């Protein structure tokens, strides 16, 4: 999923990785208007279930971990890729968490309230919280962890955006203010944590589910023996140093091979029913499928290339669980290239791609065609947006001609970079190449390979000839703000320094609308503002060409019960998940 190309590491982290929570079917999150204490009925789980069978219940799942992911996996404040998020959620707990319906439910917090002006959040923790070694876990742990994540010496700058809404965070992070107490996160007492945001932000409670808000054990961090190359204490999250607040605790950790977990007896929601959770890290798709078919793995992500086989195989099809992913695969324009300066040229390109044929016929099961940036289910999603840029070769030729190229032969060679060359993307982009060449009669060249790998360097290609690259944005939390702000505002809030704006074309109109929408609390008005944002981003002055909303398929053995499918992103193994053979 990590195939971001441009502002790599961080954004990559943020976006690609960004793992996609979604709004349950058109039911917008309404926590922002909650003022009073919310008490969500807690699932009552026996704190220490007496094992009835002598055999421990063991689940085996696979994550196709990328190399970079595992490096961040233990440090929630620096975590940005989908797989490291997953590891974080296994090991540590935040204040609140998402349900399978994308509602917010308490994790370590018991209740929370928001002040009248919408800026002060007060969390009451559950009483008697404990780390996995039995020592007490208090609000002070949260205060310490959040401030630690903002410490400029933590060097995990890319993930700063998760905490950027907190008052005083920017000044402390950029070193303008060196006093940690200037950050508005405060433990009033052992059970009460107060967080103040800079401005009212309706999406903030959703942001609180992100790993940067997890409590990290100071005791373990202090015991760390080694400093990693970015200057952070390392390996404190691995056995034997680590103590944990999440449902599972790692007992064996072998990079590039596997992480074995055991249930945390002191988890706030009760000890998980699964005693042992084995996460394997197999990347080869054929190997993953073989391992699932022989029963060595109980749950795997279905490789897109195996979809066609699985739908023809009754046995496997019965295990397939499909969900829509709250994210969008899109092409990003390299702005500032003379040939594509006229918006009509970029619109022409969008009109030349037949997304319906592409997604329905060429790549069945991969996703549904997208005409706008926000995914269905989000506030501001409006099926009418972007329809004027549907596939229409005649219109495409006209737009190109109006945009200054009446003779397509004058148009310079166009480059498409699509990241790592898996069969899926290769087929997809070979088809797109043919579509564009047929419709516009221009020359299109494919440039496979990640920006940093395999002999392609996107930075070397930029600003010279027409160029688009494939990018995936997956939601970190189910709010349109997350889609709009991180990649295409100038400067994006997470940028610590912004020295090169002249190389990035900005759209001030778009920026203004995004910030207006962020501060708005009325959902109808927000929806309208996001519609205007979309109009700018996708139609009027297109920075991006949306391609499709991905569909995720997983194979889950029928005996693995009660997995929590957080739409479009994770299949969580939580305290109630179990195996009944």
């Amino acid at each position, binding site marked *: 999923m990590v195939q971001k190309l441009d502002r790599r590491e961080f954004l990559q982290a943020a976006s690609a990785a960004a793992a996609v929570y979604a709004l349950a079917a058109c039911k917008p999150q309404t926590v922002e208007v909650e003022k009073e204490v919310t008490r969500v009925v807690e699932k009552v789980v026996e704190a220490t279930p007496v094992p009835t069978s002598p055999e421990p219940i063991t689940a085996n799942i696979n994550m196709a971990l990328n190399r970079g992911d595992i*490096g*961040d996996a233990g440090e929630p404040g620096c975590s940005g890729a989908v797989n490291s998020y997953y590891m974080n959620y296994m090991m540590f707990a935040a204040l609140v968490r998402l349900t399978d319906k994308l509602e917010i439910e308490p994790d370590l917090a018991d209740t929370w309230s928001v002040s009248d002006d919408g800026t002060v959040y007060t969390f009451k923790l559950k009483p008697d919280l404990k780390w996995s070694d039995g020592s007490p876990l208090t609000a002070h742990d949260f205060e310490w962890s959040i401030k630690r994540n903002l410490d400029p010496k933590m060097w995990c700058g890319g993930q700063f955006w998760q905490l950027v809404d907190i008052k005083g965070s920017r000044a402390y992070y950029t070193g303008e203010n060196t006093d940690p107490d200037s950050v508005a996160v405060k433990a009033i007492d052992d059970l009460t944590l107060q967080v103040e945001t800079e401005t009212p932000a309706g999406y903030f409670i959703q942001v609180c589910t992100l790993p940067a808000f997890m409590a990290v054990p100071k005791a373990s961090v202090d015991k760390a023996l080694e400093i990693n190359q970015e200057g952070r204490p390392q390996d404190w999250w691995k056995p034997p140093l680590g103590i944990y607040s999440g449902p599972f605790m790692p007992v064996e950790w*072998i*990079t*590039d*091979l596997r992480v074995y977990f055991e249930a945390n007896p002191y988890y706030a929601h009760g000890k998980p029913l699964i005693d042992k959770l084995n996460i394997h890290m197999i990347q080869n798709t054929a190997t993953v499928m073989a391992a699932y078919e022989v029963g060595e793995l109980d749950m795997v992500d279905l490789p897109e290339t195996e979809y066609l086989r699985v739908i023809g195989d009754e046995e496997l099809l019965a295990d397939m669980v499909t969900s829509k992913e709250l994210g969008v695969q899109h092409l990003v324009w390299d702005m500032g290239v003379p040939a594509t300066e006229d918006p009509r040229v970029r619109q022409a390109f969008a009109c030349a791609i037949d997304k319906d044929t592409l997604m329905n016929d060429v790549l069945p099961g991969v996703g549904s065609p997208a005409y706008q940036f926000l995914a269905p289910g989000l506030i501001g999603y409006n099926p009418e947006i972007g329809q004027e840029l549907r596939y229409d070769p005649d219109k495409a030729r006209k737009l190109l001609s109006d945009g200054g190229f009446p003779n397509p032969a004058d148009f310079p060679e166009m480059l498409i970079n699509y990241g790592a060359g898996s069969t899926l993307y290769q087929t997809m982009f070979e088809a797109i190449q043919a579509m564009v060449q047929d419709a516009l009669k221009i020359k299109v060249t494919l440039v496979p390979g990640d920006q940093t790998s395999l002999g392609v360097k996107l930075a070397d290609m930029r600003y010279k000839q027409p160029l688009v690259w494939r990018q995936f944005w997956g939601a970190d939390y189910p709010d349109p703000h997350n889609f709009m702000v991180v990649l295409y505002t100038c400067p994006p809030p997470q940028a610590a320094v*912004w020295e090169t704006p002249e190389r990035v074309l900005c759209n001030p109109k778009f920026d203004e609308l995004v910030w207006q929408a962020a501060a708005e609390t009325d959902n109808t008005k927000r929806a309208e503002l996001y519609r205007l944002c979309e109009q700018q981003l996708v139609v009027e002055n297109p920075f991006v060409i949306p391609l499709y909303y991905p569909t995720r398929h997983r194979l889950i053995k029928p005996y693995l019960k009660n997995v929590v499918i957080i739409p479009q992103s994770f299949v969580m193994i939580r305290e109630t998940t179990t195996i009944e053979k």
Partner: protein
Amino acid sequence: MGRFIVRRLLHAVATLFMITIVTFGVAKATPGGPFGFDDPAVQAHLPIEQRQRYIEMYGLDKPIPVQYWNWLSSALQGDLGYSYSFKNETINHIIARTFPVTAKLGVIASAIGLTLGTLIGVTAALKRGSLFDAAATAWTVVFHTMPVFVLAVFLVIIFVVELRWFPITGWGTWKHAVLPVVTLLLGPLSSTIRFARAKVLDVLGSDYIRTAKAKGLPRTLITRRHVLKNTLIPIVTLAGPTIAGMLTGSIFVETMFNVPGMSKSFVGAAGSRDYPLIMASTVIYGSLIILMNLLVDVTYGLLDPRIRYD
């Protein structure tokens, strides 16, 4: 003999030195850096101190010869530095974790491949024209021509999915190692068979065997004293290339069977332009090959008295 070894050792060191220069040169001539370091769009998001830190940590502000010297001097002290892509592991640590796995795999596969290959090859040649000979030849043709990565998929489908003889997830027990070893050794096995068979036939046709036969020596004695001895010596030379081939072959095998070895980490390093890790892997593989060649030369000398060292 002693002088020869010393000279070869010095020579080996010089070669290794050149390898580092070549690899370092290639690495520096191509773009890429830690965490998108040289990309202005990424830099915009880095706090200035952090950028400074990267520069200092990797010594990127120094002239390239100085960078090379720094790398070399710390490498000589046994410190291979930091990888660009593994934030929490030094390269020493990565190598210590992955190298034994690859080495074990390679040694077992080479040992089996060379011994079995010689046995089959010699037998086939001695029984030339028999059914066994034909089968051996057919075998070599098939496995000589099939790419390792295709072979690997075949084996997974047959032995894991269909027959369920071996596990595929994880690593650690002998059962996990069977398929990788088999995949790895099939190629070298067939080249050894070909080589051994050809050598034996060569020897059988030579004058001294004819003389021995003419003298009326028993067949078994001829085989043992002349044929085998004169065949086995050249086969020793195969060991070097075979082990080198194992290293390349294991790139595919380790990815396919999810073996946590060094080749897998090399491919990953190559994929993410992790030059420090690429350097380290190349140097280690290079020294291994140099060492193997040295050993082969020495062994060859011990086995064949006609060879003189001077």
